[in-house]
């Protein structure tokens, strides 16, 4: 490992990574071919630096700031000439984005589609967000849907779903799902649960559970039909978040807690099966944590009461046992 220090020295100052000379080592051992070595070594030694993620972050921040600014700006100075011009400019911008997307983008496919340019996804995202902002504003101004204002959210969601499927865009898909959930007045946002304002209205947790189950079912049907299989994870992720949040809220509310407990166990079983089938450990995390919360609640309601020592012992033995279980069966929990 020491020998080829001088070799890379003059090219890069910062390539002192632990695996600096690994490509050469692998090549000499015959584990990789020469053409592969040549490709990997320029990257590994830092002779070529990719700024892909830095630029993507710039674009993301750009979209974030721009759409937030526009979202406020659009409702100010209503009626003035400059305002009309800027609305017009935004419409043009949105049309421009979609013109680019339709012209450059590949035709729709049921499989995952590689973006044609590294910024393609962000152009689509910008176009979609600006379009929705302007459409929302026009509705506000001219009140086409004055009777059913929630419809705006539903239409937004449908529009996002269309864009997501047409241009194979996971980001817009998750926007579509959150918009659809918000049509049913449920929020998918961890920050909201944290501040305790989740499920303000009574029985909203029931809506969340039903929403979670039905959308997950639709997602699985779509997967069986082999339509955008790589979207399933996003669907299931949002659905399990909603389902478990709803079920746990129901559990704590009282009266029907045993029914909710059974629901939680059912959800955990489903999440566990999904995790094992897809080798996706996020669902495993949900399953274990929710099952633990449910079981702890059950014990608290039935046998374990009052004595604090018992709770300490419980946390030691339950968590200790869990850790032991995970490590014991570590091969079972391995990726691939």
């Amino acid at each position, binding site marked *: *490992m020491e020998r080829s220090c001088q070799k890379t020295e003059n090219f890069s100052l910062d390539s002192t*990574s*632990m695996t600096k000379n*690994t490509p050469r080592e692998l090549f000499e*051992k015959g*584990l*990789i071919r020469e053409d*592969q070595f040549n490709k990997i070594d320029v*990257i590994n030694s*830092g002779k070529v*630096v*990719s*700024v892909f993620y830095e*630029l993507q972050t*710039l*674009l993301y921040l*750009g979209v974030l*700031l721009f759409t*937030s*600014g526009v*979202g*406020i*700006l659009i*409702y100010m100075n209503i009626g003035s000439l400059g305002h009309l011009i800027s609305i017009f400019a935004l419409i043009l911008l949105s049309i421009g984005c979609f013109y680019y997307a339709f012209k450059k983008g590949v035709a729709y496919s049921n499989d995952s589609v590689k973006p044609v*340019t590294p*910024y393609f996804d962000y152009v689509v995202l910008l176009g979609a*967000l600006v379009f929705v902002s302007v459409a*929302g504003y026009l*509705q506000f101004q001219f009140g086409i849907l004055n009777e059913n*204002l*929630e419809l*705006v959210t539903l239409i937004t969601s449908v529009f996002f779903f269309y864009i997501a499927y047409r241009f194979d865009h*996971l980001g817009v898909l*998750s*926007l579509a799902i959150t*918009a659809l*959930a*918000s049509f049913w*007045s449920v*929020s*998918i*946002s961890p920050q909201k649960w944290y501040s305790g304002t989740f499920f303000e209205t009574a029985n*909203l947790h029931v809506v969340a559970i039903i929403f979670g189950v039905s959308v997950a079912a639709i997602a699985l049907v779509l997967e069986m039909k082999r339509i955008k299989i790589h979207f399933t*994870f*996003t669907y299931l992720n949002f659905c399990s978040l909603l389902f478990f949040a709803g079920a746990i809220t129901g559990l704590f509310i009282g009266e029907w807690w045993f029914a909710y407990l059974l629901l939680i166990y059912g959800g955990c079983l489903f999440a566990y099966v999904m995790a094992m089938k897809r080798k996706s*450990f996020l669902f*495993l995390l949900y399953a274990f*944590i929710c099952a633990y919360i449910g079981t702890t609640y059950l014990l608290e309601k039935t046998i374990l009461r009052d004595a*604090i020592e018992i709770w*300490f*012992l*419980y*946390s030691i033995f339950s*968590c*200790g046992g869990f*850790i032991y279980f*995970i*490590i014991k069966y570590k091969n079972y*929990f*391995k990726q691939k």
Partner: protein
Amino acid sequence: MNHAYNEVNLYNLAVIKESKRWSSQGLIEEVQLKNIEQEYPCSFYHPNIIIRILLFIATLFALSGVTGLLALLFGKLGEGIVATGCLMYGTFSFVILDRVLVNQYRHYKSGVTEALLYHACGFAIVGLSWMADFNTYFVLITCLLVFSYAAVRFLDLLTTVAAIGSLAGLLFYACYEAGGIFQQVIPFVFILCFGSVYVITRKLKKHNHLKFWLLNMMIVEVISLLLVYAAGNYLVVRELSINLMNLELVGGQDIPFAFLFYALTIIVPFALLYTGIKHKDVLALRVSLIAIAFTVFTFKYYYGFGHPEITLTVAGALLFGIGMLLFNYLKKMRGGFTRENHLAEKWANLNLQAFVISQTLGGNQSGVGSQIETGGGGKFGGGGSTDSF
């Protein structure tokens, strides 16, 4: 002091991890990856990130049970004994971690180790500080020593951050307590000290025998750069002077050396940007971008937040424009920089990106929605964007 791990295993793990990245990018084939994994066996228990989080949470729960029981048993014995007890318990945790988990069961950053490590640090620090009656100097020095030990011995990154933080705290507190002229020169002391830390770390990074601490050194580098920038930043200096040193500014008065701090606020980020590009140093590049953003914020803070919506729109358009221009500019490789995505970053998971998009960009789709919906109106809360700027 050496780290606690087996070096062959550490190296082999690094090789396997790199090879996996190459394989996921199609640079090598599956079969080759399998061969490499066989050639470089690694006996560490190092599960994937989700299992690590699970184990971390579970370990914390279990440890809190242990701590609770101990507190019930020994809690009433009087301060001196409890303090010593904390220290002993912390030390004991370090020993268990080192000898049993790492040495015997070959855990390497498994979630269990992190939980036990932070737990041990916490008790060692509280115990020691308690014995010295929580004297601030003593607490800061204890933090620095314990965190450094944890960082060096267990190659841990979070305690590295904590160690640097304690060093900065100690430095600040020392100057602050000294009073008078020392308070005035705190920014310069910081720039000098962390400038040197940065330079020294960069030198150390070139030593081959320190390669196992490379990630720790990168963290030290980034934080020193950020501290150097913050120490010279006009906003930071001004607000800290007013809040902590009771500096009173009336009318057109400005902080001492105001001009210098204005200059530093502008020069440091661009100097970093230049170094980053010149030396192809991605770390400096990333820090410089953060610094530039904060510089803009500094000037906006004092020269008008009058129209946040216009600022947001213009800034967004600019960033998007610059991003697009650079993407086009780097269509061909220029000066060793390319726009192509060679190696997937660990955190750059597409699903994660989608989730971030849905959480941050959802707020501004329809202003109407948020005005009408009542109750759990949820996602379309509007706003939310201003605080992220």
